[in-house]
């Protein structure tokens, strides 16, 4: 608490917060549109979530409970340091439990557990412009958004099909928000795209280096781009989580040795821990569980 006196609450000065708050309100009013904002330098390098941190700092209050995840995990470097940052500069309560959090800052995943009305999901976004790799000029991409000219994006997806026989884009899969703006959902796996559609939680996106904020309000149509004969589909895994046995969740591959040993585990660590606490066990959880699995085989 004594460290607090050196900073304004939540690190940012009030004028910066006001500027970001105005941008957030306009972003909510125009779902999927990227609002330019005067991104500040933060005490962490670009690419480490400076956009998400500025959004979180601007909406955070003393009664909030914060959860920070990095690729689904609460215990990786980025998540741990951002969580510690807000504990230090805002003295805010933190949690790893998805259901208890009021604000969840995330890098590249949406929690497996369904989010509710009182929750806000803040995404860290590296490149907010979905058309950037197709058209490098900002003046042009801005005009393309203004004219709703998204043919180029469909050409890109078509080229995927022509080369690979299917749409090979697996993350940062472009979506159309409320039938108007094409938006980059940040590099989340396309597995998470359906969770954005009609979500009960407010979703805010902050890109610090690129100086853009955008938003998807609750109950908003978010449709992944596709073709009639090549409909959008998410990744499927041919086995359940090795620790908790969960199916239909996003799995990370963990290499175990140099002899080809590997395991697939939930990317959402809180979801996995919660399931194990409730008695679910995967094939590789404990020796006892493993033996019984082998005996069955």
């Amino acid at each position, binding site marked *: 608490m004594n460290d607090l006196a050196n900073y304004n609450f939540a690190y940012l000065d009030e004028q910066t917060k006001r500027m970001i*708050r*105005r941008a957030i309100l*306009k972003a909510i009013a*125009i779902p999927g549109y990227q609002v330019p904002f005067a991104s500040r330098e933060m005490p962490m390098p670009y690419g480490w979530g400076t956009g998400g941190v500025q959004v979180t700092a601007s909406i955070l209050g003393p009664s909030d409970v914060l959860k920070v995840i990095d690729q689904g995990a609460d215990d990786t470097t980025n998540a741990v340091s951002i969580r510690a940052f807000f504990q230090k500069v805002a003295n805010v309560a933190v949690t790893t439990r998805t259901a208890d959090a009021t604000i969840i800052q995330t890098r590249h995943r949406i929690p497996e557990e369904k989010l509710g009305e009182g929750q806000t999901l803040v995404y860290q976004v590296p490149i907010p412009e979905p058309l950037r790799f197709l058209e490098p000029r900002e003046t042009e991409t801005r005009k393309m958004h203004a004219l709703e000219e998204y043919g180029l994006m469909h050409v890109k997806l078509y080229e995927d099909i022509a080369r690979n026989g299917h749409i090979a884009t697996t993350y940062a899969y472009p979506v159309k928000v409320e039938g108007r703006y094409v938006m980059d959902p940040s590099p989340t796996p396309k597995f998470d795209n359906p969770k954005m559609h009609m979500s009960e939680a407010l979703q805010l996106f902050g890109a610090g280096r690129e100086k853009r904020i955008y938003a998807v*309000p609750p109950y908003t149509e978010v449709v992944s781009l596709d073709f009639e004969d090549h409909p959008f589909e998410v990744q499927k895994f041919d086995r359940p989580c090795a620790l908790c046995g969960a199916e239909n969740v996003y799995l990370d591959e963990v290499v175990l040795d140099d002899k080809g040993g590997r395991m697939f585990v939930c990317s959402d660590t809180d979801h996995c821990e919660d399931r194990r606490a409730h008695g679910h066990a995967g094939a590789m959880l404990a020796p006892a569980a493993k033996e019984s699995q082998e005996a069955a085989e």
Partner: protein
Amino acid sequence: MSTQSQIYGGAFAEPVFEAQAVFRTLMDCFARPGTIGRLSTAASPPPPLGEASGAVALTLCDHDTPVWLSPALSKSAAPKWIAFHTGAAVTDTKNEARFAFFEKGAAVPGFDQFGLGSQEYPDRSTTLVVEVEALEGGQPLIGRGPGIKNGIVIAPKGLPDVFLDLWTANRAIFPRGIDLVVTSGETVLCLPRTTKLERE
């Protein structure tokens, strides 16, 4: 002639936390159009500027946001109060203003006279803060759009008769358009430009 105390008093006692609380209510209300938010920490601006409208000004206005005031507000102590507490410049040009304030019962000019943003930068538009008699008990309207699950009934009392026509025209030029904060006492109801309204 306004008194000094009217101008220098009446701001937030705890600017950091009260501005945050007011902003969160506004954010939730913009994310869920039609819901009525109560600002737990109201400011006490000089009349005829309402409590909630004053709190919105303290929370969102500063030297970057020119403010337009209705004729009655311009003649009151409100311009000096806003200037002292937020540093925002008062402008006479409607389409330059980022925020526009109306006291209870003020005539609301056509929304298209305010900044609507451009097709490239639709965010550069005016947010109207309009105080009305009450947020309930008026002509019921059904709202649909982003942030609304199955349609929500709103019935602000004291909006101009032509409001629905103005709003429909505003909705038609999406993504351009104004956004609206309707206030009454210390309560707010927000209508982003995406909300479609129709009579029941």
